[in-house]
């Protein structure tokens, strides 16, 4: 039997890689893929909790997370298309209209 902690470590590692990609990549599409990576990291931990606690509610939560991820991908990619139409670039460090 694999200990639950191993799954949680794997999930934390995938989440960490997602955070790193989101903070450091210039390409906005890869940034969105990093967000999907983070969601998948959380899903792994929820499914392993569901298995080890013998409770199906974790899998229900994963079901809702996948739904929201699909909605988020559709909206996010539409935003990227609108951005690309106005700025014709996909690099986040070239978008500085708000002087942030």
């Amino acid at each position: 039997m694999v200990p639950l902690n191993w799954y949680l470590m794997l999930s934390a590692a995938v989440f960490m890689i997602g955070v790193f990609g989101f903070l450091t990549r210039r390409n906005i599409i890869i940034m969105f893929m990093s967000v999907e990576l983070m969601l998948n990291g959380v899903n792994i931990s929820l499914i392993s909790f569901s298995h080890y606690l013998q409770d199906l509610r974790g899998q229900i939560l994963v079901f809702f997370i996948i739904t929201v991820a699909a909605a988020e991908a559709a909206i996010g990619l539409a935003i990227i298309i609108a951005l690309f139409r106005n700025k014709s670039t996909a690099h986040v460090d070239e978008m500085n209209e708000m002087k942030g």
Partner: protein
Amino acid sequence: MLAKLFFGYYAVVIIFLSLLVITRKNPVHSVMWMLLLFFHIAGLYLFLNAEFIAAIQVIVYAGAILVLFLFVVLLLNLREELQVERFVGSWPAGLIIAVAIFAIVVNVIRSFVLAPPGKYSIEYIKEATHTKALGTILYTEYLFPFEIASLVLLIAIIGAIVLAKRKTRSH
């Protein structure tokens, strides 16, 4: 022993593939590695007795979301993309933040104690079948969140159409 070997293979491949996803210069390669990553995660779900979620993972993530990503990658100017630097200038700061989050989570995991198991044991699920057991909870206890999820998807459809629509100049 065999289970640990199996998990080890999946863990190593998943971490390696996620590193490949965020470090490739060509976004098309990133999407392809991500496809392989999602299949491996679905395999891990099967290993954890979550067949329905594994099927959803393959259908929704690998089948729908990644195709959407591929369509948007087509917009990019790949020749320019292959020449510019892939990380922002302050990437060490991002690395420090990510490693700090990882350290915090690992420290929390070390003091983690598992709660007593619930009633959905493997025998129960085997008797009721996995999808039916899941559907029973989803349509009774979680009926209201389920309806809200449908609303979220509706708003996503409308929002995507409105955002991606070409502006027509009427004046």
